[in-house]
């Protein structure tokens, strides 16, 4: 027994090293496997607060840009609204199953393989995991971790990101993935041969998805049949410039929650 103890004492630094390495590897594996229940995330007040205070400077520089974008969006919405009021009553508006929570992106990254963004809205403002995040121009990602005041977003530029989309023209569905190369180009998979994808076709968000249907995602820049000749390999250029995002909307799809409840009546979510 004494020998064992003295051996352990002699090797205590090595054992301590193995312990620390074990903890960090466990955290890494955990974050890769269940990337929605991560312990280590920037969705807390310390990191979020720091990012936010630095973001003020950044925001000031980009203010012109953001204002112009907002004006454009307002103009587009006004146009749509004038169209809308002709053939519907005001009551219809109340039944919209989506809720949009405005938020500001306070930490952006697009150069890594696993890009995680931080926004300045959290559980206090009604954000929960698995909500979609969009901008005026297109989609940004999906809410991953939620803190009290801040949340992290799994960007579309994350090698584990997978988003349900469809071709605007023919409604054929597929999944949007990222191969980790260009931050402007994502890949579209599982589009069947019959869809006859062409360059410049528009991709929008799909029917059964956390995003409202028909949010613009990007346009096809390359389409070719894969080796099996049954599916298309499609490259999609994002409408959103992921390097310059600024303000975003978090989408709360209330209808989706009901659908999920019907599908899994036992789960609490």
């Amino acid at each position, binding site marked *: 027994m004494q020998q064992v103890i003295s051996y352990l004492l002699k090797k205590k630094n090595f054992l301590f*090293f193995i312990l620390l*390495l074990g903890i960090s590897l466990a*955290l*890494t594996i955990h974050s890769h496997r269940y990337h929605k229940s*991560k312990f280590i995330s920037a*969705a807390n007040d310390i990191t979020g607060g720091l990012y936010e205070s630095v973001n003020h400077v950044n925001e000031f520089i980009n203010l012109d840009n953001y204002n112009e974008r907002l004006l454009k969006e307002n103009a587009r919405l006004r146009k749509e609204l004038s169209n809308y009021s002709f053939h519907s009553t005001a009551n219809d508006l109340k039944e919209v199953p989506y809720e949009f929570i405005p938020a500001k992106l306070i930490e952006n990254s697009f*150069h890594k393989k*696993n890009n995680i963004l931080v926004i300045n809205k959290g559980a206090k403002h009604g954000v929960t995991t698995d909500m979609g995040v969009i901008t005026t121009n297109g989609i940004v990602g999906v809410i991953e971790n939620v803190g009290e005041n801040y949340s992290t977003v799994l960007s579309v530029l994350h090698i584990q990101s997978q988003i349900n989309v469809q071709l605007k023209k023919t409604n054929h569905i597929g999944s949007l993935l990222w191969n980790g190369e260009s931050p402007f180009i994502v890949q579209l998979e599982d589009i069947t041969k019959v869809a006859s994808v062409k360059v410049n076709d528009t991709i929008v968000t799909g029917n059964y998805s956390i995003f409202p249907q028909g949010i613009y995602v990007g346009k096809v820049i390359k389409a070719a049949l894969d080796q099996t000749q049954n599916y298309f390999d499609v490259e999609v250029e994002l409408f959103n410039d992921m390097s310059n995002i600024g303000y975003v909307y978090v989408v709360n799809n209330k209808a989706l929650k009901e659908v999920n409840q019907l599908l899994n009546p036992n789960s609490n979510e």
Partner: protein
Amino acid sequence: MNKEVVLRILFFILLVLLQVLVFSNMRIGAYVPYIYVLFIILFPIKSNRAIFLLSSFLLGLSLDFFFSSGGVHAAACTIIAYIRPQALKFSFGRSYEFQTIKLSKVSIAAKLAYFSILVVIHHLVLFLLETFNLSFILFSLKNTLFSSIYTVLLCLVLVTLFSKRKE
């Protein structure tokens, strides 16, 4: 003694802040310099090994919080903290244990070797764990090479500037 501990903690915080707020934004292409490894590189040689390991681990972990990256930085930091004696021995010869090395006094080649060993191993572990996928191994190696060059150069510049000011 106490003053040294306080200074070390301040250095820790300073490096984390500098890394997150300044150097993470100094990308060249996709290559980010991770200058916070300076904390491990410059940690006093004659110090408790367990404390050194623990503080390196905590350094990595605090960056993981900022980058939402699981335990990737913590693992990389713990590994280079553990192998640092070997890197010291390789770069400065066996004598490093008996005399305190002043980084401003060793030859530039030895300094470059010491910095490079730790930075390359750190970056390699970091990028391999970050993608966690063997199909991205070429990307990880390429990223390790270029980011390491960038980090080592910046670290050398920082160390030179810092030691100059002191004299």
